[in-house]
């Protein structure tokens, strides 16, 4: 089987600390892959490998290869800016720019040098629709995104990522700062998005992984303990650690 993304023999160090230990994983296209595990086990570090977001950390060091569509994204010839146009990211805390809703969603297009106003308008509208936010904000696109509720802000951030039409979306605990109603909305949204996008989502909430992910990877102290179809992980885990974790016996 061919994977959309692949991690091969990944070791990550922050200075002397080894944060990831020989990770191998293949991620399926148009599916949701959940990363679970206790806090500090390396989920975010792993997720941020796919858009090279760890590159800014001085002490960060990587061994191994990450492939997207069979290209090694850590190869010298890869342009990081280009890579990120294909790999969108949604962060733990909603982080809209202090700009209008419209300008937030249009940001990625503008930095690509696109000036065609009509085109930008259509893309912004489409992205907001995909993010299930259009109906709520269509009459005040000029309003500051900071004036929205937390859940709406997070959907602005999702729309911002979608507007440049990436093929992959990385989400790092995207609902951890949201209330249950907003969380339900975002979860529903993620399920619709997987038709068009490959999604990797970090969550410390196992019920959430169970609800939305097709595949689930369980990390523990920098090791990938188990990776399988979500059903299998939740009903028939092979490792005792996984079972202990998902049944809530630790973590």
């Amino acid at each position, binding site marked *: 089987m061919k994977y959309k993304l692949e991690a091969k023999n990944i070791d990550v160090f922050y200075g002397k600390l080894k944060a990831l230990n020989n990770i191998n994983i293949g991620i399926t296209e148009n599916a949701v892959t959940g990363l679970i595990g206790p806090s500090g086990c390396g989920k975010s570090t792993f997720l941020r490998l796919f858009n090279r977001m760890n590159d800014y950390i001085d002490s960060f060091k990587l061994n191994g290869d990450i492939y997207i569509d069979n290209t090694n994204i850590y190869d010298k010839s890869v342009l990081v800016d280009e890579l990120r146009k294909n790999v969108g990211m949604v*962060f733990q805390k909603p982080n809209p*720019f202090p700009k209008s809703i419209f300008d937030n969603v249009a940001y990625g297009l503008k930095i690509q040098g696109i000036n065609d106003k009509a085109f930008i308008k259509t893309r912004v509208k489409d992205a907001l629709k995909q993010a299930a936010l259009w109906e709520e904000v269509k009459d005040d696109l000029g309003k500051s995104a900071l004036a929205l509720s937390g859940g709406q802000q997070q959907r602005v951030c999702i729309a911002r990522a979608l507007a440049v039409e990436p093929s992959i979306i990385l989400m790092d605990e995207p609902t951890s700062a949201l209330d249950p109603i907003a969380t339900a909305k975002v979860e529903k949204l993620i399920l619709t998005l997987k038709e068009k996008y490959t999604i990797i989502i970090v969550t410390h909430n196992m019920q959430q992984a169970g609800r939305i992910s097709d595949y689930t990877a369980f990390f523990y102290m920098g090791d990938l303990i188990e990776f399988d179809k979500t059903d299998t992980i939740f009903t028939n885990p092979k490792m005792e650690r996984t079972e202990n974790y998902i049944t809530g016996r630790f973590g």
Partner: protein
Amino acid sequence: MQKIKEKIIEFILRATALITILTTIGIIWVLLSESLVFFKEVSIIDFLTDTQWTPLFANKHFGILPLISGTILTTIIAISVSLPIGLTIAIYLSEYAPKKLKKFIKPLLEILAAVPTVVYGFFALMVVTPFLQKLIPEMAGFNSLSAGIVMGIMIIPFISSLSEDALSAVPKSLREASYGMGATKLQTSFKVMIPAASSGIIVSVILAFSRAIGETMIVAIAAGQQPRLTLNPLVPVETITAYIVQVSLGDVQHDSLEYRTIFAAGITLFVFTFILNNISFWIRKKFREEYD
């Protein structure tokens, strides 16, 4: 015992605050009362509209405009030098420079503001002006251009340091959001960081303005002492501050109308800086609300 100690400390703190407030009130009081006497003899309309300032000559005119134009001219030259350089340094330090370099450069830059201004004044007069005269032969020995440029160099750290603080205070998550969209460092700096830090940057510029308007030594030495209503940077001018120095040090008789001109000039200067301070206070207040 402990209680008494605390009481004493509290008393000292309070007394210090009181002294500061009283000094300020005293200054304003002197400025106001002396200017009131001045404005009994000179109409405020003439003061604000007459285009000549010649209180020390036989044919006396009391138009403040030439001094204001001199002040604004040198200040604008200074800001046009310090704003682009200071902002570039701020962006470099906050977005590009390694942390270690930043720790080293920032204090180094702040030395610029610590050099005695008389040194800058002579630098402008003896080095910058002769150099510029080679390029622009018609330039006078005293002029606002050299004084403005050198003053601009002096206030670079006001802009670079405070703007850098403002940029660094922007939440890291915004920078990540921008990089995550595929923006370059340059795009991130100009499209996200500067707009997000704009209030802090504006405050730094206003502070630099205040500093430039109040700067005395450089302009007194290098810009000349000829009140002149002009925007030509190549000829001698006089700023409000330089005029005050000129009269204070000269042999003008105290308690004369000529002498009281310095209070009228002083209150004009005070109004300018007071307005600037209020603008920056207002922006800072607004800024705080935004991020709460």
